[in-house]
């Protein structure tokens, strides 16, 4: 076997690949250390809980988005879906007393939105960037119409408990549901046929087709998952806030895309993993939380965030694997 290992060693995985794997973690640790040094309130227990609450919704949206990015497409409508779902939930709870039934309703909203995206992309053959840019507008418009442009406030003890209660120890419920769901979709991504097919479709669609995989079905599934997760995220978001506002979910789109890329899933598809979303989400959440704790001005925060995202993506994006880094 010596000649085999010789032959193989000449093609061994370069050290840079291993570096790529650990860079997001290193980044995360670096941030934690820096923020902690500046203000040790960062390390406090209440702050840790805060961090969990703040990142819960983003984690759901980012994991869902990961499905679409793995196949090499993108979903820009995720923020709008979150908003739409939040408004629907608020209306159902406030006006129709739906209570917990608003959760399946939110999921349905998300799935339908995902189906619309899939329809335009797969049957309409519109590139996903443009299709979801369009549906972003459509979903936002629908939100405006049904919400009338007002904030929708509601009071529901069940939803209140779902968001703010503590089922297990000190962990805020919202973080708990988020982690459980994240675990489920990560398992789907890592251990099911559908999950494996995502990589094949994203990494080599022709190869996938020629291997007998139903590529259209896989792609549709990805958009449905993204929509579904955004729908559920909307539910959690509004449960936590108690009020649905018109632009609630907007900021989540950019944060989610950044989280996915920082986590190591390439925008060109076929590389990374659903489970990777959590690293990216933590990086972003820690950054927001940390900057708040040390008292940085809000607008300065957005500048710093943008800069760190660029740096993080530049370092972690494995260009050798992306064929088009335009």
């Amino acid at each position, binding site marked *: 076997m010596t000649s085999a290992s*010789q*032959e193989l060693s*000449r093609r061994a995985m370069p050290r*840079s690949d291993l570096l790529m794997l650990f860079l997001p973690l290193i980044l995360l640790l670096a941030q934690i250390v820096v923020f902690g040094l500046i203000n040790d309130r960062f390390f406090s227990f209440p702050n840790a809980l805060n961090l969990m609450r703040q990142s819960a919704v983003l984690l759901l949206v980012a994991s869902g988005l990961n499905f679409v990015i793995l196949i090499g497409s993108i979903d820009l409508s995720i923020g709008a879906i979150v908003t739409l779902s939040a408004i629907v939930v608020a209306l159902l709870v406030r006006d129709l007393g739906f209570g917990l039934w608003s959760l399946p309703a939110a999921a349905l909203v998300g799935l339908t939105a995902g189906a619309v995206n899939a329809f335009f992309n797969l049957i309409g053959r519109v590139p996903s960037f443009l299709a979801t840019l369009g549906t972003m507008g459509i979903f936002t418009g629908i939100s405006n119409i049904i919400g009338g442009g007002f904030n929708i406030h509601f009071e529901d003890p069940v939803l209140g408990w779902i968001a703010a209660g503590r089922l297990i120890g000190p962990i805020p419920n919202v973080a708990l549901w988020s982690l459980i769901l994240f675990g489920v979709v990560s398992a789907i991504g890592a251990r099911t046929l559908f999950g494996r097919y995502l990589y094949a479709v994203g990494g080599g669609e022709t*190869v996938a*087709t*020629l291997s007998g995989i139903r590529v259209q079905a896989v792609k549709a599934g990805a958009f449905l998952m993204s929509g579904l997760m955004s729908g559920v995220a909307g539910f959690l978001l509004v449960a936590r806030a108690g009020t649905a506002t018109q632009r609630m979910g907007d900021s989540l789109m950019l944060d989610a895309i950044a989280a996915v890329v920082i986590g190591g899933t390439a925008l060109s598809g076929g590389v990374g993993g659903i489970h990777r979303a959590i690293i990216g989400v933590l990086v972003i959440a820690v950054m927001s939380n940390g900057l708040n704790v040390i008292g940085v001005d809000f607008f300065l925060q957005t500048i710093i965030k943008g800069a760190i995202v660029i740096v993080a993506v530049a370092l972690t994006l494995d260009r050798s694997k992306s064929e088009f880094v335009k």
Partner: protein
Amino acid sequence: MSSVTMTGEGHVAARSPTSAFAMAKTPRLVVEGVGKAYGGVPVLKSVSLEVRPCEILGIAGENGAGKSTMLRIISGIVRPDSGTLRLDGNPFAPIGYAAAVRSGISMVFQEQALVPNIAVYENLFLAHEKAFRNRFGIVDRNAAIAAAARALDDLGLGHINPRRQLREFGFEDRQMIEIARAFALASLYRIAEPIILLDEPTAAIAGKEVEALFNRVEAFRGRGSFVLVTHRLSEYLRLCDRVYVFKDGENIDEVGRDRMNEERLHELMVGRVRSTHYYKEDRQRPVAEEATLAVEVRNLSGRGVKEVSFVLNRGEVLGIGGLLGCGKEDVGQAIAGAVPFPEGGEVFVNGSALPVKRRIEAAIAAGLGYVPRERKAEGLVPYLPLRWNASLAMLTRLRRFGLPWIDRSSEIEHVRKEMTRLRIKAADPMQLCVYLSGGNQQKVVLAKWLMRSPAVLILQNPTRGIDVGTKEEIYSLIRDLSEAGVAILLISDDLPELIGISSRILLMREGTIVREYAAPADRKPSEDELIRHMV
């Protein structure tokens, strides 16, 4: 073929009386102690060689031996980690390919380095437009077009209009344009004696184009030097004055023309003697009288083919040959259902009629495996691990409890067995396929289908760009499969391979089958006979 006598070292004087360099007898390019490593893994280890005036030099070696890397260093694309190069006595360390071109070294790339959405003449002189600037600094297009037309004409490519966009031309024409570029650039800089590097120039062309290229190379002999890298050993014999043999990153031998034959080259490259039955004809099964039908094609028509009908029996190896555009690839695609394919007519695999819509899924379900022509674009996903690529077509059989949950241990076991059977050399089955050699990659593609125990296997150019050692293994595998009753359809541009492996051969020309040959082990048709009907 030019009849120049070879006298070993001092042959130059006999060749070209007008070559100034030839008179001087000094080598054109001297490479000394060059080493190159990628990611800590040495690809070239202290290699020395020289390129002499007016010669055609070959560099032979298995995949991974370092031949392409050597060419890239000579052409300035890659910088060596150690060692020196001297061109005509002066130190030569080009910064980039353009610098090498201006110094007189140009290269024909294996994977076409052409831009599809610009014109042919723009492609030919890409990055060298400055040479056509007039006194106002504006590029004189007409001069460039004229120069392009001349270069194309010289190579027998007068039918290619240099003004047209590159993507309007088919694969083989583009390959010839790639070749023309090296010559065009050499003329552009009025390099009296260019050195042209040929990196597997015939890997994707056949017949007429190969002849045209070789004629051009031989015609150029008195006016420059060539360095040829190819996987077809016969080409070294045909063209080269000397051949260096590379093995594991070292230059292990220099073989002069007088000592050159295929067996010797094979032996040096692989380190063992080539078996006399390279194509394992002794294991070829005779075409049985009452054979069971595996594939039936009736009146296949449409894209590229006209009324093609034939049958393929179990345990048989049916070869289909023909020149560019004959439609043989379309036939393979039609049976497998690889879009786009000719849709007219009927195709039956194992008795089931295949639908037009979603044919590939139906074909696979009926027991077919399809090994496509371009392994990196169609056969496997390069940035996925070996194990995932190997199991890609049979994941549905690896379900746990009937749910779409992948049974990992079963997957690992199946892949391990297949890796052992095919002798796929990889220390870690989770290694990304992009890091495997061409031969191993092709084995992974084969493994993908073999794991399903197919009844029919379609192979499109299965040994393209693969070293001889692995080729032999694939031929053995084909014999193993035949013995087990698998029906094999071999569509290949490699004529000796087609003849040696097939028990029956169909020749196609312009979309129809023009001849059928029986090719029993003891009475194989000759290449010439086949070529006569192919053109």
